[in-house]
């Protein structure tokens, strides 16, 4: 059981760092760029894709213990992380409807994991 929690944590870490990378991509996408190439070849974009790459390695590490059926369930936490990070870094508003939806997702994930 403890091992399961640890490896689920590793999987979630991948989801968290990917969410940070998504925010970085969104931030650079909103900025004007000198050229088409510059739009892709800049530090935040390269860093974001490096992070996505690292996240794939974390998920392989986690799948050593967690079942395949559990992966996409844990991945659903990205709705929470993206909303939180967008609120913090992009000053995006989180509507009541979104909070309600995220609550249901989290409730479902907890049910899936512990019921």
């Amino acid at each position, binding site marked *: 059981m403890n091992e399961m929690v640890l490896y689920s944590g590793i999987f979630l870490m991948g989801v968290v760092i990917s969410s940070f990378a998504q925010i970085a991509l969104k931030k650079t996408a909103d900025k004007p760029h000198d050229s088409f190439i510059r739009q892709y070849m800049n530090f935040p974009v390269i860093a974001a894709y490096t992070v*996505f790459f690292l996240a*794939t390695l974390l*998920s*392989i*590490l*986690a*799948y*050593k213990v967690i*079942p*395949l*059926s*559990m*992966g*996409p*369930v844990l*991945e*659903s936490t990205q*709705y929470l992380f993206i909303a939180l990070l967008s609120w913090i870094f992009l000053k995006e508003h989180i*509507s009541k*409807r*979104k909070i*309600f*939806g*995220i*609550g*249901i*997702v*989290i*409730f*479902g*994930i907890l*049910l*899936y994991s512990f*019921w």
Partner: protein
Amino acid sequence: MIEEERQKNKAKYFILMHFVLLFLSLNAVCSKQAAQYDWFTFKWFLFYGLVIFCLGTYAIAWQIILKGLPLTVAFSNKAVAIFWGMFWGYVLFDEQITLKQIISAVIILTGIIIISTEKEPEKAKINDASEVEQNE
């Protein structure tokens, strides 16, 4: 007639989207398979290569899907990954799938649909404008 054509086109994109999502689910299958081997061995590299291939192909295909379908439809349908994960886990890795898990998955799916079908005020305006344009 034009309306009929548009509906047909949408249906085509919808089916294509689900093929793409099925394909994307294989990325998790390859990750799980890679996890069975020691790191940096030939088989590990083989399955990890497939993971990257799946993700790369998906990224390109998803851009095409987004051209043909509204973002809300695309994002809420993405949640089907949960069911593919359960299906492949059961079929390929002998995982136990319980009724409780299926019920929990339906709850997660409901939450995702609530989140992704929300229309933002500005976006709603843009969508309405593009619909007017298309009707014209």
